[in-house]
């Protein structure tokens, strides 16, 4: 299959492991990607917290740019995914707003594609059986909890993603590649998002709560599909509570034994390599 690809700003910087592993896994699973032409930032929390029209226009510029290719847009970053879906939701529901935003951007909004997160693409289009068939390495000793956070799921009628109180797609993907996935009730709790920089103490508390819960569930790592959750969980928890955090694509890459698999583990702030070495996975 072929998709448009919107990496977003994080995937070129703090979330580069997600971009690298996403591309490697896409190649290996036969997902051909074409980057959205001359994309710009989605505006994230800062736009919708301060200016509604801006928060719709910034993602809409990218949605209009993606129309040319008429391919489903794959958006790995949960925050960008949420802003894209939110813009789509408002533009489809409100004609007056649509006209206003089209005037601001100078282009027509005629959506001819779906906005999709790779968790959904891999689960629904590639499929669990196909993924299982491509797994070469046994991840048996790896005990992740899957952490979905907020922005893939909520609000459910906007995101149209997964069971919003007990999502399962990432759990099933991780089980398919051989990980011993632990159940926990913090799958959809918030990591503190963009307050990490301006209200750090609150975010440390929130990340500590998540790490304690993951440990209680018997996990030895946490898996995410969001670069903001990754940044917070990788850097903010108190030292004694930290666990390695992976993007789900990094573990698929590892299980498929892709040549690029080892490259991304080096740049995590909390080094996951000792755990992977101990389990003889690298």
């Amino acid at each position: 299959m072929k998709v448009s690809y919107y990496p977003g700003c994080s995937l070129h910087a703090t979330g580069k492991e997600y971009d690298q592993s996403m591309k490697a896994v896409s190649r290996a699973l036969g997902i051909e990607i074409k980057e959205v032409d001359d994309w710009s930032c989605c505006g994230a929390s800062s736009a919708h917290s301060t200016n509604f029209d801006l928060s719709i226009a910034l993602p809409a510029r990218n949605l209009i740019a993606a129309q040319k290719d008429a391919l489903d847009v794959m958006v790995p970053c949960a925050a960008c995914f949420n802003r894209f879906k939110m813009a789509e939701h408002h533009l489809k529901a409100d004609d007056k707003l649509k006209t206003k935003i089209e005037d601001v951007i100078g282009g027509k909004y005629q959506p001819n594609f779906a906005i999709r997160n790779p968790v959904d693409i891999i689960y629904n289009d590639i499929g669990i059986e196909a993924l299982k068939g491509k797994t070469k390495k046994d991840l048996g000793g790896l005990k992740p909890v899957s952490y979905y956070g907020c922005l893939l799921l909520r609000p459910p009628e906007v995101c149209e993603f997964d069971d919003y109180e007990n999502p399962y797609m990432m759990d099933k993907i991780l089980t398919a590649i051989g990980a011993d996935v632990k159940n926990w009730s913090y799958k959809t709790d918030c990591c503190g998002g963009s307050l990490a920089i301006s209200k750090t103490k609150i975010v440390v508390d929130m990340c500590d709560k998540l790490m304690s819960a993951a440990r209680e569930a018997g996990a030895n790592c946490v898996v995410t599909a969001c670069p903001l959750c990754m940044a917070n969980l990788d850097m903010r928890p108190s030292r004694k509570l930290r666990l390695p955090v992976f993007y789900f694509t990094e573990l698929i890459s590892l299980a498929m034994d892709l040549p690029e698999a080892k490259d991304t583990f080096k740049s995590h702030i909390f080094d996951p390599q000792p755990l992977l070495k101990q389990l003889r996975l690298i």
Partner: protein
Amino acid sequence: MQTFLEEVNERINGVPIQRCYHCRKCTAGCPTASYMEFNPNRVVKMIQNGERDKVLRSSTIWLCLSCETCITRCPNEVDIARMMDVLRQMAIESGIGARERNVLKFHEAFLSGIKMGGRINEPMMMVQYKLKSGDLFSDITLAPGMFLKGKLALVSPRTKDLKSVQDIFEKTKSS
């Protein structure tokens, strides 16, 4: 003249917030309620009471993370998360500013980063934030490790048609 409640409802452009029957599900699920001055459902009541100044000057509206748990669970579909957005926007527009000053400084640094390059360059955005907030030394110990691991690239690709992005800022300014 419009009441505070009418103004908030008009901006939310959805379910009127007076549908809230104070079951407190929003507050129960809110990850930052314990840090807030007023609980989310209390803010609804305060808006109904016309306590404009108190609401717009509160820390509550700036501590909302927009995690959207409240709207997801509200039995009456009152969009508390959108209400918080609206209240922040009203606080900015009316010149009240932000009780949690650095939260707004962060947003300003982020948006000026988009204006400068079309995309966010994280190190430059952090420098902007530090200059705006005066909070120069927090997180400083994280920076060297991030540089060494290649997570903070000083130069990153920009949007080529930068003018189209800057035009969006210009044209949405007054709203």
